[in-house]
């Protein structure tokens, strides 16, 4: 949950995005209101690309988006500067947010920070089409771009851990098998995700969380070997099939209520879906009930409450 934490507290998305302090207050208040288990030191998904000069477009009531990528395929990716999270763009606001959340909540709630995954940031740095064509046409230079993106995300993630985050969520939707072939994930993206998770672990992160939206079932069982402790699965992944595919893996998984259901459906629908998921994973454990992706800002408050209620009720021992 990102900007929904603002909406539910009578604040605007703009207020949430403009200040790490305000965003932290919104997260704290939403946590108190709903009673879930984790807060997110997250503003939006353009922090890294904005910090290296990408043109970011802001519009009322919406998350900012990348209007113009900062680099071109002709750039020398081995010579690009790594932004300093304490001063570059809006990164300092996120550090402030992580620090405030940890100071306010201590270890009573998980403070989750977020960085872009190497592939997703590479796509933001060049634009989707140019990045994918570079991967196909000049794989060696694409690897240089991935290495640069990894270094940016690693530096940002370590700074968030240093200021209070418990875990780092690596947001990597562009690595989904719907976007890139499995071989490219295995050979190019996987090693860089491993490097990220290892760096976070060395710095004392409680864990690492890999979030790849879309049909991620073919790669999700590999997450643990990459060093991830939690893996998200989106609404389009069949939880029963995932359960079978996980086998003996110790990976904790989170998912997968359809995000738009929080906007369009009712509390009974959410509870029904939550119960179905809890039932499926009841024997395995290692499951976090959540939305398949972000809970949209315009979600109905009663729907979010229904999700939390379902989880808490499930924890009670049977009479």
């Amino acid at each position, binding site marked *: 949950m990102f900007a929904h934490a603002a909406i539910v507290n009578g604040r605007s998305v703009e207020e949430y995005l403009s200040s790490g302090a305000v965003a932290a207050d919104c997260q704290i208040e939403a946590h108190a209101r709903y009673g879930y288990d984790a807060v997110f030191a997250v503003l939006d998904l353009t922090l890294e690309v904005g910090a290296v000069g990408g043109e970011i*477009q802001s*519009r009322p*009531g*919406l*998350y900012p*988006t990348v*209007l113009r990528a900062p680099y071109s395929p002709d750039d020398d990716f081995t010579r690009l500067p790594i932004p300093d999270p304490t001063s570059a763009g809006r990164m300092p606001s996120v550090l402030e947010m992580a620090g405030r959340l940890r100071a306010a909540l201590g270890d009573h709630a998980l403070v989750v920070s977020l960085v872009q995954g190497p592939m997703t940031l590479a796509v933001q740095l060049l634009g*989707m*089409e140019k990045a*994918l*064509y570079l*991967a*196909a046409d000049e794989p060696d230079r694409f690897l240089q771009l991935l290495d640069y993106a990894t270094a940016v995300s690693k530096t940002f993630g370590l700074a968030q851990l240093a200021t209070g985050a418990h875990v780092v969520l690596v947001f990597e939707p562009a690595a989904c*098998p*719907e*976007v*890139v*072939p499995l071989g*490219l994930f295995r050979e190019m993206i996987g090693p860089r995700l491993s490097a990220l998770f290892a760096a976070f672990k060395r710095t004392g992160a409680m864990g690492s969380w890999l979030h790849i*939206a*879309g*049909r991620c079932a073919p790669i999700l069982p590999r997450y643990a070997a990459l060093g991830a402790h939690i893996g998200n699965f989106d*609404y389009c992944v069949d939880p029963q099939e995932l359960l079978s595919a996980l086998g003996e893996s110790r990976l904790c998984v989170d998912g997968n209520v*359809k*995000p*738009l259901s929080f*906007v*369009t459906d009712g509390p009974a629908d959410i509870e029904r879906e939550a119960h179905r998921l809890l039932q499926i994973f009841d024997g395995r454990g290692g499951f976090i009930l959540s939305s398949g992706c972000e809970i*949209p*800002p*315009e979600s109905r408050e009663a729907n979010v409450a229904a999700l939390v209620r379902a989880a808490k009720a499930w924890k009670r021992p049977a009479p």
Partner: protein
Amino acid sequence: MPSDLDSLVQALTEGERERSQGIVADLVGGGVSPFEIITGGVERAMAALDKKCTAEQFNLLEIMLAGRAVMAVIRQLFPEDAALPSPRASVVVAVLQGDIHDIGKAILKILLAGNRFRVIDCGRDTPVARVVAAVADSGSAAVCVSGLISSVIPQVQGLKPALARAGMGHVHVLAGGAALKQCAAATLNVDYVGQTAFDAVAYLSSAVESCHPEH
């Protein structure tokens, strides 16, 4: 020994742009008409990709590489879009106001062009009124809108009524993209919601066939 058209289908589906263009040059030099190359090569390649998508082996990179090869061949054969042979129908594509993510639209454009649809691209962050005007100007049979973020849904819901008010209630409205494909067609007030761009092409092909069986 595969025919040259079979070789073209293979080169296109493998995303081999330069090899595809070389085969096309040989075909044209050997007297094969551009129309035959489109129907016997490009459209067959599109059908092969569609089959691959149906088998859940779809990934964007492979589709983009194939699409790049297809567009290179189409430009090689028909330097002007208007010269496309016997377009099956005109289709307006757009990302509506409030959303600027247009990779889905880009993919759809390629698939539509490869299947002999004339495409009118209204761009991204586009007001509904501009889409309605484009449909009127082009006489399009359908509008395809792609949306990555849920906040664009009200715009999508307003598209069909806006077309009806302009006397174009018969125009098919299709939706797709990460946010929109989570909704039912009735929720979005559209005729069809595609899980992939191939779904949209299949729906349009069927709709066009039922209106113009001679195609």
